[in-house]
């Protein structure tokens, strides 16, 4: 008698993802939905989607969701969580949302120790708007606003926001993972689980930065895109635990 080892998560609506073939968002959505289900928090969850490819995340996550202006997710999440402290509030944001336009809101939510969970999808490019440079675009990486490659003198270097957040007093758990292989995907799920548990324990601000492939805007095949994540992105954005106030919490 065969046992099904893998099935559609309860907290993912039965909708077909509009994301590109090989897009990391699809994988991450699935992981987040599985974690919400396994932790039994679906009825308490309120999510804040970004502006970006995942702007329609509420078409997929079967939890209450409230749209925020671009970059303001951490501030909107702060408002929700302060009014309803026993609910589980998370944001799902890209590199522009968190590390460009929303940098101030993200840093200050972390500094105040807002008890929310930020899911930071880092694919090193602005996907929805057609592939412009992101704060996390690598030096030399092509984008539509860095033809010829990102130039450190003109554009500055990529921003390690997670390391900056690790310094913030109110950060309780900051980890960087990837969705580039079954191994890193399984680890990302563990990190997301821990991030939500940190919130449930009221320990402070939790964030998981997930290096994610964007085959379309990187102009790579999906298989080559995950290789790029593993071989190039991790050299500048190493996969590691940046801060953990609860090392025994799994």
């Amino acid at each position, binding site marked *: 008698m065969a046992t099904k080892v893998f099935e559609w998560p309860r907290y993912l609506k039965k909708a077909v993802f509009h994301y590109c073939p090989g897009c990391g968002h699809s994988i991450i959505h699935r992981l987040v939905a599985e974690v919400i289900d396994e932790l039994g928090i679906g009825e308490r969850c309120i999510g804040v989607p970004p502006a970006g490819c995942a702007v329609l995340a509420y078409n997929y996550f079967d939890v209450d969701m409230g749209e925020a*202006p671009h970059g303001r997710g951490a501030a909107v999440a702060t408002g929700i969580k302060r*009014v309803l402290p026993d609910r589980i509030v998370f944001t799902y944001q890209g590199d522009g949302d968190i590390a460009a336009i929303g940098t101030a809101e993200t840093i200050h939510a972390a500094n105040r120790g807002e008890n929310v969970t930020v899911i930071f999808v880092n694919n090193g490019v602005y996907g929805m708007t057609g592939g412009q440079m992101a704060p996390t675009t690598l030096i030399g990486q092509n984008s539509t606003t860095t033809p010829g490659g990102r130039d450190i003198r003109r554009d500055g270097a990529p921003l390690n926001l997670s390391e900056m957040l690790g310094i913030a007093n109110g950060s309780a758990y900051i980890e960087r993972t990837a969705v580039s292989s079954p191994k890193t995907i399984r680890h990302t799920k563990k990190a997301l689980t821990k991030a939500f548990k940190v919130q449930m324990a009221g320990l402070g601000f939790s964030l998981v930065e997930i290096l994610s492939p964007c085959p379309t805007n990187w102009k790579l095949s999906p298989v080559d895109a995950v290789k790029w994540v593993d071989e190039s992105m991790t050299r500048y954005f190493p996969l590691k635990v940046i801060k953990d106030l609860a090392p025994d919490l799994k």
Partner: protein
Amino acid sequence: MRGSHVIGEAAVRAGCRFYAGYPITPQNELTEYMAGAMARLEDGTFIQAESELAAVNMVIGAAMAGARAMTSSSSPGVSLKQEGISYLAAQELPAVIVNTMRGGPGLGNIAPSQGDYFQATRGGGHGDYRTIVLAPASGQELADITRKAFDYADTYRTPVMILGDGMIGQMMEPVVFPEPLDLKKLPPKPWILDGAKGRPSRIIRSLLLDVSVEEDQNWKLVRKYEQITREIPAAEKYLTDDARLVVVAYGTAARIAKGAIKRMRDIGLKVGLLRPITLWPFPNRILVEMSRWVRHFLVYEMSTGQMVEDVRLGLEGRSQVHFYGRPGGVVSTPEELSKVINTLYHRQNLQEE
């Protein structure tokens, strides 16, 4: 009680349980009052946000979660909130925004002015929306209007702005407050995001990619604004029944105008005051009705002329509209305005009628 404190106390009694703000002169007394007031409440939240921009976004979140939420600032800080106000209107969220106007544009100064009328009533944020704008002119009115602001916000699911200036904020006047609202008696909000327990999950959003859907939503908002326009316009009429010249002014400018008008009446000039209390919806009906016997209106603003456009628009040529204004934080004296009224009155031969 000081004007800015009146707003704070009235807000608390109106059920405000979330405040986010950023310091800016001349409204810091309100932010500081809310810090104390929210801390004294078991279910109150005060956040000194990192910017006015962050503050309005926290209010968005608080409103989504069902709280009566407020933020406040002064002119340049209110500029930062415009994106948030557009979203509040688009997502049909209730919230109260207090603007204590100061001299501008740009960094300007900290003196009282009325230079943000356009910003308040014409959007300021992007898109086809309106904000209810209430303009108090006394301490008591601050208390009454603040209560109304929260009620309108919830009733119509729309942002409401209280437009004051530094003078109103600093005024000390006696005030009678209404009894504090029992939050449990407020009507439930069946649209908030509080976790999908025992019900389908909800979405609050304003992204509508299909243009016909977005168009429908825009017309739906228009119908709401039309309802508001039918139900809440308000204005004070002072000595207008036999007036040949009516001054139109709001807020502090109206207080000065009253002083000038008293002086004019003392020497026999038939001058009155129309004081809009709702700047949006503008009290057009009262204005148009008054134009049946009032041939001349003098709009007096502490600006280079913003509300005067609404007066002209509302009258549609029925009467003559004149303007007198002092921008930059200059506050006229009643004497100064009296001279202006007197000159205009005689130039138009109104003493002959």
